[in-house]
């Protein structure tokens, strides 16, 4: 067995694709129609294109418990998942300039530095830098 995919729930796939590629810098990998306007839509890291794919899945629109869970995480400030970066402060500054909202500024936690932002698709995402 191999881990090649992780999924993240989004409210609007097209909006998510724009945010994740144009703002965060991911690259679109797969885009297939699944009927009813839904897509199998995955993106990969630009600097690690054969790394795991991130599936932008429209779960919250079709499955109420998914929406409830996503809302609860958002409300509490909990990140849905996290991405590794070389420098959290640099990314924080770059993304802030692009209008991305952070609920937690870069904070040192022992051997890591983390920050949390809103992905505009219903999720908090944590950035992490290993120190």
């Amino acid at each position, binding site marked *: 067995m*191999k881990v090649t995919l992780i999924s993240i729930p989004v409210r609007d796939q097209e909006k998510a694709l724009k945010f994740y590629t144009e703002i965060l810098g991911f690259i679109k990998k797969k885009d297939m129609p699944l009927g009813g306007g839904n897509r199998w839509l995955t993106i990969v890291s630009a600097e690690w294109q054969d790394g795991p794919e991130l599936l932008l899945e429209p779960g919250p629109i079709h499955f109420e418990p998914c929406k409830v869970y996503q809302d609860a995480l958002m409300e*509490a*400030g*909990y*990140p849905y998942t996290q991405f590794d970066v070389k420098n959290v402060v640099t990314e924080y500054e770059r993304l802030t300039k692009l209008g991305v909202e952070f*609920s*937690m500024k870069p*904070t040192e*936690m*022992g*051997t890591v530095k*983390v920050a*949390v932002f809103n992905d505009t698709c219903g999720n*908090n995402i944590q950035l992490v830098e*290993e*120190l």
Partner: protein
Amino acid sequence: MTFYEKELHSIRRIVYSNEGQIKTVIGIRNYIDHNYDANLNLDVLSHIRFVSKYHMLRLFKKYYGQTPRQYLIDKRIEISKGHLQDGMSVTESCFAVGFESVTSFSTLFKTKTGKTPTEFQKEQLSRSKID
């Protein structure tokens, strides 16, 4: 402050309160990052921070979740991938990251990435030709 951020602060108090230990392990990790091609062992690593080798081993595992040796191997494999992508031979890549035996490098590479260095390189080079 979000609920999540409060939780993080409480984890930091419990897990990351010993600044001296954190400085020590961060120093050792940085040393590995810059000297992965050297012949590193517990004696060398513990001398950098003037701690006993088993204490250092325990601390590293406690804060990074893996032993310095495991961390070093992952680092070397990751960097050797870059060398192979750049067209460096398997033997050269092996020595460039500090491994001493091409056979054990190849075996380790296959265990970690699912492909032998030769297979990995062929795949990467043919991919760049198609692009």
